[in-house]
């Protein structure tokens, strides 16, 4: 049996990444409390690559995605520190006007619920056209129309259906339309927030397959947010595991699925999946719940639930260690492990990071 692992994706590219996030910290502030949604994360997505951002509800994945597009709620969402670089330009320094040029055009987003993402009173064709016209004001009506049909065809919908309304499509088809709108301007980066969670598994397979094809054809990079490790295994090149606002492990898919070292949470995630192939009667859940983001414990956020928790874990936040060229893990388990090197991200303002006392 030939080696099915795609070789191509294993090249560690030295080319500049398309998206680079460093030291990002995002909080939500209401009059009652401060929610620490994202805490000092580091992320990179290469050109043409797909990064799977894995984590459970409340881990901060959607917040991260919204931060990239600067779509956090106006009055309550704050990017406290960090940098986000897209194709060499700093997103955080852009004006709103510049951001509008980026959104939908260079970076597109697909949200989780296809039912509510489409405007029920506009035809599907109109909605796609809207996106096209917004970013290509010089196109004539006929050209726009042609592009609408092309886009529909690209996602596997009959072009004649452009005159139909969203309610006339099923869930899977609606999600395709949403993806079509996201891709019609051929963005460089597609952010997909749990794009198939609301879909049946057979439809999910179709949609994922379509996304893979499109990605290959257009060379789009993708940030795929999901909680489903199966999807990650089948579609992603790189993986980042998020917990309580931190990225506790990241690397290539090979690192995460086959590597020798893992963060205990990653191990727990794999263990708690009801697996079609396992024979055990009982599942192995991770006990407890994610910590309250308004009241994060000092030290490692996973400590209260960790089977391998040590004293130091409760007191001090672990540092990120790099193993090999790509595998990063943030856990005290590897403090003594000489194979890895401690990474300090490019200092933006050195206040967090190393010293945690």
């Amino acid at each position: 049996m030939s080696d099915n692992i795609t070789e191509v994706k294993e090249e560690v590219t030295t080319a500049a990444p398309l998206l680079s996030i460093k030291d990002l910290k995002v909080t939500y502030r209401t009059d009652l409390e401060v929610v620490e949604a994202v805490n000092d994360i580091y992320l990179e997505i290469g050109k043409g690559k797909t990064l799977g951002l894995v984590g459970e509800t409340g881990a901060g994945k959607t917040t991260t995605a919204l931060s990239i597009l600067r779509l956090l709620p106006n009055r309550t969402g704050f990017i406290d520190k960090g940098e986000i670089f897209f194709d060499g330009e700093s997103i955080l320094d852009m004006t709103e006007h510049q951001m509008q040029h980026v959104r939908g055009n260079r970076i597109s987003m697909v949200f989780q619920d296809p039912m509510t993402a489409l405007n029920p009173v506009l035809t599907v064709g109109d909605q796609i056209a809207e996106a096209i016209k917004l970013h290509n004001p010089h196109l004539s009506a006929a050209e726009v129309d042609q592009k609408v049909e092309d886009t529909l065809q690209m996602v596997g919908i009959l072009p004649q259906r452009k005159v139909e309304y969203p309610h006339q499509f099923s869930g899977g088809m609606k999600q395709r339309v949403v993806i079509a709108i996201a891709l019609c301007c051929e963005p460089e980066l597609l952010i997909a927030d749990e794009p198939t969670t609301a879909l049946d598994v057979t439809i999910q397979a179709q949609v994922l397959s379509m996304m893979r094809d499109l990605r290959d054809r257009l060379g789009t990079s993708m940030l795929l947010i999901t909680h489903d490790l199966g999807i990650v295994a089948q579609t992603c090149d790189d993986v980042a595991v998020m917990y309580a606002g931190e990225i506790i492990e990241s690397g290539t898919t090979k690192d995460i699925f086959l590597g020798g070292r893992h963060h205990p949470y990653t191990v727990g995630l794999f263990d708690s999946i009801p697996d079609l192939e396992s024979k055990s009667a009982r599942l192995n859940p991770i006990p407890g719940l994610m910590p309250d983001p308004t009241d994060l414990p000092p030290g490692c956020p996973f400590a209260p639930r960790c089977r391998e928790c040590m004293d130091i874990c409760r007191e001090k936040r672990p540092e990120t260690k790099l193993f090999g060229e790509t595998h990063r893990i943030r856990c005290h388990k590897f403090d003594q492990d000489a194979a890895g090197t401690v990474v300090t991200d490019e200092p933006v303002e050195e206040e967090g990071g190393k010293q945690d006392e």
Partner: protein
Amino acid sequence: MSDIDRTAEPLLKTVDLQKYFKLKNGAMLHAVDGINMELWPGETIGVVGESGCGKSTLGRTILKLIEPTAGRIYFEGKDITDFKTAQMRKMRQDMQIIFQDPYSSIDPRKSVIEVIAEYMIIHKMFRTKAETYDQAAKYMDRVGLARRYANSYPHELDGGRRQRIGIARALSLNPKFIVCDEPVSALDVSIQAQILNLLMDLQDDMKLAYMFVTHDLSVVKHISDKIMVMYLGQCVELCESEELFKNPMHPYTDALLAAIPRPDITRRNMEFKLIKGEVSSPINVKPGCRFGARCEYCTEECLAADPPLKEVSPGHFCACIRAEELKAKLQADNEF
């Protein structure tokens, strides 16, 4: 699972159960179309299918939350099909339901303890409110809800805890049979595992029979003794749990299994065996195999008449006329 005594009469039995909805334009929506099933105490039947297959409607029809159009429902030997509200009231103590959405299935204006105690109050199980609440607190313990949440409101708790409220409520009348309508679909993966374990423990403790409705095949495998696969209101395959995964016979089951993305990167480049097209409409269905339009093995004969549910091997039922001949092909594709 624990051993199930199948010599006695089944706890629950349905015969040709049908539920049709009449639509505004006069068309008939065949939500549940001729389901036959038997369930014994302590047993779990997993009902699997995608949206529109009728599995949720089936659960609710059995509980008479929806009135059946035709067919019979027997509970502990009694024919409850025509029971009116008053008669069903008593039955509700024996047959309960756990809902899918822990956010909408609990009254947001009631505190946790009030929600759990409600059923007991309706049925006047205890003389005083205090005694009722006391018992409700015991159910909280049973499902692993810390007592300090008794006075909290549901929206203050997370999905996993809310679902435990729903479970405690379903248990409060000491039922014999519970319809679990996708109880973990709305929850995170690690919480799912916790809740599934809880449900299995409760089943062992209280000898409960479950009808576990879900679209997630991997979840159903762990909790079910036998599994029924539904498509557009009909049962297309019914057999023991292990058997379904080892020898799926119906092309739809096969496709379902194949569509599940496995967390295994060594099989990354295998093409998903995609079923083409969308689920057909359950409205005004014509005779013939309902999966035919999407099935790669479909023939003229398949579309001529409804394929009957045949026992293809002991205990293994399949509604596909080509089941036997496709057996070898399907098995080869499912090499794990």
